[in-house]
């Protein structure tokens, strides 16, 4: 029994416990030894309104991206699940409540919409929960119980996960939840024996057991900051970045750090600059609207050459936009935002592992190049969960990278000393003989204000030279192809790259000659490497989740002809099948 590759979905209305159920499902599958990729999409509203969908793809091999087809749909609210039916695989399994509060007409019935190939598992979830635990609140767990029985998933996989999640809530809640789950499981064992499914049976030899850990993008970022010796976190609640603050609030104090919920984003990034200026690794995380408020202080960091780490979890924009939907539309703002020639470092991870790596790396980059470092993630990355071995950071990756002034200049210290690399040794307040004033005004080497033409020109060159020099420490683009000339070269960044790689792999399996190039250093970027790759491709395709094609705008001049843009502003991740279709049309047109 070879590959396991199953996509499961829980769909309900906000407040039905959809996200919680999806989370438990992912944890249980991970504990069962599968590779897991999960992603929740939910409405801005909190309860009693709007559709929540948690999608999880589970398999024996590493999961790169979510696919269109759904093999299992667990509906906690049939009206909300209507829109999910078109995505069902022909032989999908559909779980829904057989005793909803009201009778439903044919047009509004889920069972009427499902194609005959699918198998229905209708059972009284709310009644079973109410009978077992006195309230129907636990019906989402009853639904999981029914699913576990139908797919012969060992009961204690779920019980352990439920215990872990609800332990903190006290035994009454934990006990009610286990009873609710068991009510569904028992019902399933008794009533679903005539239509059991074996698509989730782990093939022999698969390593079961939890040496893998479930991490979301946000948790990986928080963990990276912790491992990198973060001292101060200043933040303000904003979807989807808030979970980072909440993760650190529980763990930073134990390591001698502090988390402060500031009054807004301006005060947050101000405090980060103050923190780094005074020698403490500081960080803030926000999303589009908050990032816009931070722009002025970011350019102040560029001018005053003060390190800072700012994570921007992009969401549907502009303005308040789509707070709970995903988008990659802040690239322009991150690279070019703010007044004046203000170069800064912008990096963008493409999966949960890189969320950790880039967060760790951002502190050294900020210290070494004395500049704000912006890490660009997005909702589909922050809320995505993957199971992977817990990432670690080596000593050298977290060592202090600041260049301190030499003893020889004590008493005659020039903060903004002109150097070839553009990096001027920086002293930390409290060190005798090295006092200086940082300033947002243009300044001479000593730091005192000066607006003469030559000085502004040479200081601007210094600042640009410094950032350009960072290229050697920034992660180079990574190519995935058989090498040599390619029919189509697909370039991508951020959360969309998983889908690109899945599409390229399938295209190659279908006999096309296609390659993918992953770009993680957005600014400064490795122009030479990208140009070389482009020249080997007869067509270059850049899929990204923004309307203007913001990465394309940055690098299309490197290609001798126009790049093909697949620019989507839908709020939902680009699916591998859409990219594949584009690749095939380009490849065939080219041939």
């Amino acid at each position, binding site marked *: 029994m070879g590959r396991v590759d199953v996509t499961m979905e829980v769909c309900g209305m906000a407040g039905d416990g959809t996200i919680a159920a999806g989370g438990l499902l992912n944890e249980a599958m991970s504990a069962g030894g599968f590779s897991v990729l999960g992603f929740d999409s939910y409405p801005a509203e909190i309860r009693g309104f709007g559709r929540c969908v948690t999608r999880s793809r589970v398999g024996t091999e590493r999961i790169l991206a979510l696919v269109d087809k759904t093999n299992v749909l667990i509906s906690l609210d049939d009206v909300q699940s209507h829109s999910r039916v078109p995505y069902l695989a022909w032989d999908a399994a559909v779980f829904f409540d057989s005793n909803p509060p009201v*009778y439903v007409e044919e047009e509004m019935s889920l*069972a009427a919409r499902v194609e*005959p190939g699918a*198998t*229905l598992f209708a059972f009284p979830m709310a009644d079973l929960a109410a009978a077992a635990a006195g309230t129907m609140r636990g019906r989402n767990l009853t639904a999981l119980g029914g699913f576990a029985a139908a797919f012969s998933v060992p009961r204690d996989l779920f019980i352990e996960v439920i215990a872990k999640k609800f332990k903190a809530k006290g035994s009454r809640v934990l006990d009610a939840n286990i009873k609710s789950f068991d009510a569904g499981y028992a019902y399933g064992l008794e009533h679903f024996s*005539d239509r059991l499914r074996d698509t989730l049976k782990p093939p022999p030899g698969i390593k079961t057991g939890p040496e893998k850990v479930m991490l979301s993008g946000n948790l990986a970022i928080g963990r990276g900051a912790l491992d990198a010796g973060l001292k101060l976190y200043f933040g303000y609640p904003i979807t989807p970045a808030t979970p980072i603050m909440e993760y650190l609030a529980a763990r930073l104090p134990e390591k001698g750090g502090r988390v402060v919920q500031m009054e807004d984003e301006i005060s947050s990034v101000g405090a980060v600059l103050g923190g780094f200026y005074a020698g403490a690794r500081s960080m803030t995380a926000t999303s589009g609207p908050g990032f816009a408020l931070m722009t002025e202080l970011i350019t102040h960091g560029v001018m005053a050459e003060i390190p800072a780490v700012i994570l921007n979890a992009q969401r549907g924009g502009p303005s308040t936009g789509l707070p709970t939907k995903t988008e990659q539309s802040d690239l322009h703002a991150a690279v070019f935002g703010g007044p004046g020639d203000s170069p800064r470092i912008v990096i963008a991870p493409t999966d949960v592992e890189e969320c950790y790596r880039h967060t760790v790396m951002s502190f050294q980059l900020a210290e070494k190049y004395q500049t704000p470092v912006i890490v660009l993630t997005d909702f589909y990355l922050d809320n995505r969960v993957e199971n992977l071995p817990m990432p670690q950071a080596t000593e050298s990756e977290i060592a202090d990278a600041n260049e301190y002034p030499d003893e020889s200049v004590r008493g005659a210290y020039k903060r903004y000393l002109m150097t070839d690399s553009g990096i001027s040794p920086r002293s930390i307040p409290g060190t005798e003989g090295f006092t200086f004033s940082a300033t947002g005004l243009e300044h001479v080497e000593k730091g005192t204000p000066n607006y003469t033409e030559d000085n502004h020109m040479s200081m601007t060159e210094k600042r640009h030279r410094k950032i350009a020099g960072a290229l050697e420490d920034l992660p180079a683009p990574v190519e995935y192809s058989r090498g040599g000339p390619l029919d189509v070269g697909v370039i991508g960044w951020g959360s969309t790259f998983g889908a690109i790689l899945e599409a390229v792999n399938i295209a190659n399996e279908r006999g096309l000659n296609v390659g993918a190039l992953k770009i993680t250093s957005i600014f400064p970027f490795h122009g030479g490497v990208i140009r070389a790759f482009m020249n080997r491709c007869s067509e270059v395709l850049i899929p990204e989740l923004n309307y203007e094609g913001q990465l394309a705008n940055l690098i299309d001049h490197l290609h001798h002809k126009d790049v093909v843009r697949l620019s989507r502003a839908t709020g939902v991740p680009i699916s591998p099948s859409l990219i594949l279709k584009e690749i095939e049309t380009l490849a065939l047109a080219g041939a």
Partner: protein
Amino acid sequence: MAGDHVVIIGNGPAANEAAMTLRERAPEFRVTIVGREHVRQYKPHLLPALVAGKITEEDLFVRSIAFYQHAGIKLRLGQEVVDVDFDTRRIILAHKEVLRFDGLIIATGGKPRIPEPLLVFQDVMMTLKTLTDARSWIDKLARVDCVLIVGGDLTSVAFAKTLVSLGKTVKFMVDEHGFWPLHLGDETRQEVARRLASGGMELVPCRKLRGLARLSADEIRVETDCGRYTVGAVGAFFGLVPDVRFLVRSGLYIEKGVIVDENLMTRYDGVYAAGDCAQVYHPTLRDYWVSIGYRNAENLGRIAALNLIGGKVRAETAPESIFHVDGVDIPTSWWAEI
């Protein structure tokens, strides 16, 4: 028939034949089949062969799912009708859905009959009517060697032979309700008994089943009016009774099955019943009878569909299908309560 939505309750031969006929003759109608089982139509009389391992489950099925989709027939599997309101012409499904219909064909077929006195032993006995039953037999036969067959109806003889071919010891008890619904004269009963014995089965002489007690998962103690046995499994084969419990008190005339006139129409116009669940008055028998058998069901399904779209076809009631037990002809197609 006003409106265009025809709903067919049931997914057997009668139901599907009716659906195909409607598709050919009345393309403008919307046809929906609502079947309780989770699988598409299959031939129940091949189940013994499945249990014997001679065929696979795929061989049972009659049509592919895609066939229905191309034919534009909405097939709804795994959904059970729990009530029908004939005044407002609405069907209530088990998962609390209301389905409106303009035309209705009831073709739910028969379900295994357990005589009332034996109902208390129901969960100890196994029947063989659906694919699920067959799967549980296959599972059970992997663990037991000796099977008691009680009753004796159409399938029991074929099934008993299958068991013998699988090397199982088979005890056959022609219960007081034996060969129901037929009333066997004594000499025909002897003749049949003799034939069964020669087929490798041990004929148990008793007539009344007193008690069934489950000793363990695969061991049952049987008490009859003439002795006590221990067997691995007990098969109940008392014939089929129309599967129309959900229609009782719905306004339809129901005795054993749904009572229809010679055009298979019930008391409500636009509402027909066909196959093993329908009961029609038989002038020569002077009683209401239920036709048994796959081809009869198909035939009646077609007739019901034709009449629904305005036809006036009489369901002829010549009892031509005969049931052969090793050369003994037993007219099966009429119904005589003993």
